[in-house]
């Protein structure tokens, strides 16, 4: 479902490599962890060697002081292993979790910066899995896999060098054993990277279905479509299971091979070594030492399989993260953007055209409209004529594709986003509420709003019901304001917009869900606000249109007429058709039935 799913080994490793900037603050701790891991592994390997020495030395010679010495050494090594194991984990619990948290904070910050156009296309589930399991996977590799990769390679190298010096022909054999390992690793990486990416994408898809099913639960219930949605979920889950099994198969093969290699190596070392001993090229003692060291090598080789697997997974996870990070916020402050300051509210559209990113035709074109300071202009148009798109351009939720919009004579792209959005407030047709207190839902970004301002906004929007909530303004409103009716939510959204008297108000059909009585009260209060505020009001009803000083008729993506309600009603048949309450317009009906 996401746009680009091509995966290449090189690209993914590059993404992982880019993650290093997150590691930089923790280089010191990483080093400590690496050293601690080395000490741990070293001690672990040394303990049996000491035991061996005890048996060959003091016990054979009857030397009790030597026994004390070596026994003490074994105990010391045992304590060292545990202490350094503790140190590694303890340090890890600080820096790696800090790193994980930092990546997640950055991801969230970046997502908040990305424009609405991005979020229209993004699947919430895909974003959630990026923020959770993908980041965790990366942390697991950087904080654990990477360290043991270094430790294991070090161990392998050290032991191999030692073996080469002990008896080079056998040592060479050990070196050569790296060839099949490398060969199978390459094959594995090529297959696994695709499988890993696919699993991660499918996890996101599963999450997406879950999210939609949860948010849309009432529709599912209202239509009795449990089975349909369940079927979708099962389909994605089945895909995920299938993809995971592909991963399992690749891993099983690879891990089995990595198990096999050291065993075969051991058999070969034994055979060739024994022949060498028989030929007198090698002492028996050296062969025994050789064999026991080769046994030691089994673990690093086997562990390689696991480390490489999470390495690949974190590489594709990093890919998925950088797909988000590399998306430039198209709507951002221009260099040299200045603060808008206190706006008078002269809003002007100059030859504005707009098309949705990636679309092949314009939603709006050639829009010229001036809204004088304090003036209210209603936008009227048929469903799908581009009204909502027009309103979204003013606070720069989308940017114009051509022409420009000016506020007090300045292109709105030349002022800072913050100051623009402080000056322009919008009441959306979908009154989105968040799981937070009613008060917080009203203020949203304006944390400095005073109680008086809040009270005023509530009274304008006739949203006094908030005082009657169980804990008044402090009441937590459920997810999406589920516990509020549509009319209540719309009034809250309106109160949110008028709060703090913005210079420009954009109201998208603000009264649609209100009953006649409430609508009348809100209109009356709103009129007072609109008297002093520049406003664009999308209107579907004559009653809403009457809030405005002038009306602009939007047809086919452009403004075809501007005037007062009555002027247009008299002059423009199209306007009459759209707004006239009389249901005698059979031509409209006939048109619709075509």
């Amino acid at each position, binding site marked *: 479902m996401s746009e680009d799913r091509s995966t290449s080994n090189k690209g993914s490793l590059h993404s992982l490599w880019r993650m290093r900037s997150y590691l930089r603050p923790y280089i010191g701790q990483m080093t400590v962890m690496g050293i601690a891991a080395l000490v741990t592994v070293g001690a672990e390997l040394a303990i049996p060697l000491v035991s061996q020495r005890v048996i060959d030395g003091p016990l054979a010679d009857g030397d009790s002081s030597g026994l004390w010495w070596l026994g003490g050494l074994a105990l010391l090594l045992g304590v060292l292993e*545990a202490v350094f194991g503790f140190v590694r984990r303890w340090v890890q619990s600080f820096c790696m979790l800090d790193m994980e948290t930092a990546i997640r904070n950055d991801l969230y910050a970046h997502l908040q910066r990305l424009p609405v156009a991005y979020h229209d296309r993004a699947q919430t589930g895909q974003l959630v899995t990026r923020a959770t399991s993908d980041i965790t996977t990366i942390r697991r590799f950087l904080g654990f896999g990477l360290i043991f990769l270094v430790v294991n390679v070090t161990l392998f190298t050290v032991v191999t060098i030692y073996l080469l010096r002990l008896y080079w022909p056998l040592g060479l054999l050990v070196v050569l054993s790296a060839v099949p390992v490398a060969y199978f690793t390459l094959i594995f990486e090529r297959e696994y990277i695709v499988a890993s990416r696919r699993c991660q994408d499918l996890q996101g898809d599963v999450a997406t279905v879950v999210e939609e099913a949860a948010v849309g639960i009432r529709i599912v219930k209202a*239509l009795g479509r449990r089975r349909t949605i369940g079927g979708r979920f099962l389909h994605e889950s089945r895909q995920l299971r299938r993809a995971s099994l592909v991963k399992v198969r690749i891993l*099983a093969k690879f891990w089995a091979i990595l198990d096999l290699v050291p065993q075969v190596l051991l058999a070969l070392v034994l055979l060739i070594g024994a022949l060498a001993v028989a030929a007198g090229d090698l002492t028996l003692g050296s062969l025994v030492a050789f064999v026991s060291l080769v046994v030691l090598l089994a673990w690093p080789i086997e562990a390689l399989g696991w480390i490489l697997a999470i390495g690949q997974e974190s590489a594709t996870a990093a890919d998925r993260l950088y797909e988000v990070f590399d998306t430039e916020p198209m709507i951002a402050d221009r260099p040299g953007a200045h603060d808008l300051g206190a706006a008078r509210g002269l809003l002007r559209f100059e030859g504005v055209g707009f098309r949705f990113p990636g679309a092949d035709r314009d939603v709006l074109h050639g829009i010229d409209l001036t809204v004088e300071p304090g003036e209210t202009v209603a936008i009227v148009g048929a469903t799908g004529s581009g009204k909502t798109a027009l309103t979204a351009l003013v606070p720069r939720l989308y940017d114009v594709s051509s022409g420009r919009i000016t506020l007090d004579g300045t292109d709105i792209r030349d002022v800072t986003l913050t100051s623009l959005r402080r000056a322009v407030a919008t009441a959306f047709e979908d009154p989105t509420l968040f799981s937070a207190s009613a008060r917080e839902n009203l203020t*949203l970004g304006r944390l400095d709003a005073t109680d008086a301002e809040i009270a005023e906004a509530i009274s304008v929007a006739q949203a006094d019901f908030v005082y009657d909530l169980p804990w008044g303004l402090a009441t937590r409103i459920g997810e999406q304001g589920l516990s509020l009716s*549509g009319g209540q939510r719309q009034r809250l959204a309106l109160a949110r917009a008028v709060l703090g008297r913005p210079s420009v108000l954009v109201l998208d059909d603000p009264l649609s869900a209100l009953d*006649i009585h409430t609508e009348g009260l809100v209109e009356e209060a709103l009129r007072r606000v609109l008297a002093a505020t520049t406003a664009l009001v999308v209107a579907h009803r004559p009653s809403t249109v009457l809030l405005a000083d002038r009306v602009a008729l939007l047809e086919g993506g452009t403004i075809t007429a501007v005037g007062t309600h009555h002027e247009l009603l008299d002059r423009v048949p199209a306007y009459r058709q759209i707004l006239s309450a009389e249901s005698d317009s059979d031509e*409209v009906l006939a048109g619709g039935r075509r």
Partner: protein
Amino acid sequence: MTTQVPDVGAYDREWRGVSAEDAEQISTAGGVFLRERSRRLLADLARPHKRSLWLVAVAVVLQNAAGMAGPYLVSVGIDRGIPEMAAGEGPRTLLLVFAVFMACAIAQGGLRWMFFLISGRIGQAMLFQLRRRVFTHLQGLSLSFHEKYTSGRVISRLTSDVETIGELLDESLDELVMAVLSIVSIGVILLVLDAPLALVVLLSFPLLILLFRWFRKHSALSYRRTRETIALLIVQFAESLGGIRAVQAFRREPRNQEIFESVNGDYKLANRRAWKLIAWFEPGIILLGNLTIGAVLLYGGFRVLDGELEVGVLVAFLLYLRRFFAPMEDLSVLYNAFQAATAALEKLSGVLEEVPSVPPPAQPRPLPRPSGAVGFDDVRFGYRSDSPVLPRLSLSIPAGQTVALVGATGAGKSTLARLLARFYDPVEGSVNVDGIDLRALADDDLRRAVVMVTQESFLFSGTVAANIALGRPSASRAEIEDAARAIGADEFIRALPEGYDTDVRRRGGRLSAGQRQLVAFARAFLADPAVLVLDEATSSLDVPSERLVQRALRTILTDRTAVIIAHRLSTVEIADRVLVMSDGRIVEDGSPADLIGDAGAFADLHQAWRDSLI
């Protein structure tokens, strides 16, 4: 089962379902109950795979047997093969040893391959089953549950929690089999070899058990906390990005960032707490093992020096001891994964235990051809027990009648509609269709009988056609287009870039609110129910669209019952009957013409509405 944990009953209610989700500090008995419940779920999921699990265990044992042959073969090769060669008898034994060695290696690799395949298949099947069960169950739960249990929580249960269990299943379970096996068998061997030395080893046992118990107790708490904080994190993440328009338009980004960093910080702290426990626990196990080995080495060494013990026995003892403690370390890692998974299982089993407050009937009554007569008999209902919304409502709507419900905000219109769609069940009394209580209808029959369209028309991402087809998944393309045409949505849909195949994107974001309502209408029309409930379903439509819908409704509603809630009284024009509601009661009831003629509430409303039109 209950006899094992006699005090479960007392905690049954308290910890039932998701009520324990926020409780981090849980009493011991409550904790026992939650763990029992999680373990039952895990056992339930594993049950169908019993035979495969045995196969896995056998594979693990065989594989380890093959692995054990290695050291023995090495000794044979050195002790016998080399002397043979030296004696000039040729490399026969040596080659034999090599051949057997290779065979063992290949058997080991093959068995390991088989083990990974089978255990992977079992793990994935269990995860799939778990996902399916939780999802299906959640979808079956009533709206009252979903209103409290936010979608972010649902996501976190079905992603993060399930993945945590996946991690346990990924942890090589072979280690568990081997650990148990080798700890028992080697324990016996040690005792047989030398009892006093074995006693030294046994001394470490109480400490090991204490350590495990300490870890279990504390990690259970911190993993619970981890699950809870990740859920909060996902809630904040999904919800704020879902409402990104409002966030950006009202400059809430800094505040959101603050909240997110705070929950992210909580999650970090919860994780850190768990990690710190591991930092003590895992090295603790290692330390105990190493100290024991050291002690055995010293004690055994001195006994050898005193001549009480043979060197060979000590050597064997030390070798076995390593094989004894190594799996113990693996076990500690596994145990950690198990603890994390248990916390997730606690949450999931809690969800699975929730009972729908609108339960499906045990013995459904069939309603194959509903005619659409609706009855409310002495219905009492309130969202909270202290404030009834409908104190006592009786209403009878004959089949085929179109009823308009009007009244001020909060009069109970939507509540009545929701009861009719069985989003909730009445506290007292009954709602029935064709004389059959809604509670006795199976879901399929209920939805064939009643469908509701609300003002928030949620669209799923996918094509327009797919969204309409949700009304009746079996509908053909032609039927879908007919439905859209009937409702007047055909025109705008065809004007979209790819017509009916246009992706409406997340939440239908590509369409305007009015267009979404039209799609929702077409969907309900396609569903073709006997009773259609419209709750403010035309609020976002412009006048021409609404007129089209009204016009369409006239034909659509001729042969079905309809309950229409609308603030715009234009709807009333098509109604046979108007009910005016106030404070949960029906205060006026009659034909539109009669009511306008009276000097009642409806006449006032109607006048106000007429005034608003110009």
